[in-house]
């Protein structure tokens, strides 16, 4: 799927890979932090617009009559997510189910960008004057960590709302180790430390799992594309590597369909679990 013969013009394999892993950046200020990855943001916003447009259109058209194909599809996803959330979280919440749906669909769509031929959009970008273009938002740590931190804040808000501030802060010192009297004071800092680690680990694991999978997936597509880097019709190797590359690309694409769905599902499921845990009394 990745024809990249002319890519070699830049100068070799390292250059090619490096080029592919470089974001289109806008340096807003001086330093490392005030930089915006324009490609990541643009693709994300585009996918969000597509998702919101489709979903809210479906919502506006929704009625209790016989559903059309599109409505039936949307409702199937909605009901699937809703049932999953009901199985895990036994309270009532207006937040969890829509949040889960948004996570699943958005992460799936962003991951799906990985299945677009790895050189197609960068090639179109270069043709229209963009030096770099990375099109998989979830292969950018900023995206996954941004989402994970939003989820983290929502977890805290959810815990506060469901338990009330008193219980919320009390449990920081009294769970998971319960004790009375003097021992309670001894265990309080240990409990707090465990709680802080537990809370801090969640967004990190959530974001790194998704990022790692998508980054590795993207990298493998790039490596498969490298097989025919600099190939020419005159080279004998072109006719050996070409079919191998095609096969490898096909196999990895099929396998990757599973991965992108699974990762979207895991991100959603863990969010539901974390939010359920935040609402539980210890």
């Amino acid at each position, binding site marked *: 799927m990745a024809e990249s013969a002319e890519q070699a013009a830049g100068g070799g394999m390292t250059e090619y890979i490096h080029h592919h892993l470089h974001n289109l950046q806008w340096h807003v200020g001086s330093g490392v932090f005030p930089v915006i990855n324009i490609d990541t943001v643009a693709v994300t916003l585009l996918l969000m617009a597509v998702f919101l447009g489709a979903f809210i259109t479906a919502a506006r058209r929704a009625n209790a009559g016989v559903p059309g194909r599109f409505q039936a599809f949307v409702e199937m996803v909605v009901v699937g997510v809703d049932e999953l959330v009901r199985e895990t979280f036994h309270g009532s919440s207006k937040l969890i189910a*829509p949040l889960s749906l948004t996570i699943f669909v958005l992460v799936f769509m962003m991951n799906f960008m990985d299945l677009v031929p790895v050189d197609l959009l960068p090639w179109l970008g270069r043709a229209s004057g963009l030096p770099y273009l990375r099109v998989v938002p979830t292969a950018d*740590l900023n995206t996954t960590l941004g989402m994970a931190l939003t989820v983290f804040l929502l977890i805290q808000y959810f815990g506060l709302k469901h338990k009330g501030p008193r219980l919320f802060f009390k449990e920081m010192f009294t769970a998971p180790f319960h004790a009375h009297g003097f021992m309670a004071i001894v265990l309080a800092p240990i409990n707090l430390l465990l709680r802080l680690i537990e809370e801090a680990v969640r967004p990190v694991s959530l974001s790194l799992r998704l990022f790692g999978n998508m980054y590795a997936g993207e990298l493998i597509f790039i490596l498969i594309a490298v097989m025919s880097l600099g190939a020419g019709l005159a080279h004998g190797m072109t006719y050996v590597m070409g079919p191998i590359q095609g096969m490898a690309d096909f196999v990895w694409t099929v396998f990757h369909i599973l991965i992108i769905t699974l990762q979207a599902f895991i991100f959603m499921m863990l969010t539901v679990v974390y939010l359920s845990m935040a609402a539980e009394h210890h």
Partner: protein
Amino acid sequence: MNINLTLIIQGLAFFATVLLVMKYGWPPIMAAIEDRQKKIAEGLVAAERARAELQDADARVAVEIRQARQQAAEIIDRAQQQANQMLDQAREDTLAELGRLKAAAQADIASMAQRAREDLRDQVAKLAVQGAAKILQREIDPAAHRALLDQLATEI
């Protein structure tokens, strides 16, 4: 590869999407689904009720048909009975009339025989008187002998 400002933009964009889905996307779709579930449940109940009503109606119709057949049979029975009664009556009437006519005829015959007998007796009496007159060669006064003649007639 670095963490940069994109992080915050992505986080906020994600949060905004969640809010929009929560506010404008999810509730109408859920409402529509629940509405439809309710409608389907009501439809099923209505269908069940209609089926039960149909069964009731069928049973009622069967009962009514049976009753109607019974009534028809009764009416036919009664009509036959009536017809038989009428026939019997007619026969009895005819027989009675026949008896009556027979009795009248017999009475007629009896009276006519009586009269014939009386005529015969009169004539015999007259003949007897004429014979006696001829024998006696003398006029018997009919007036003087009326009683004697009547008695003779009766005896004959």
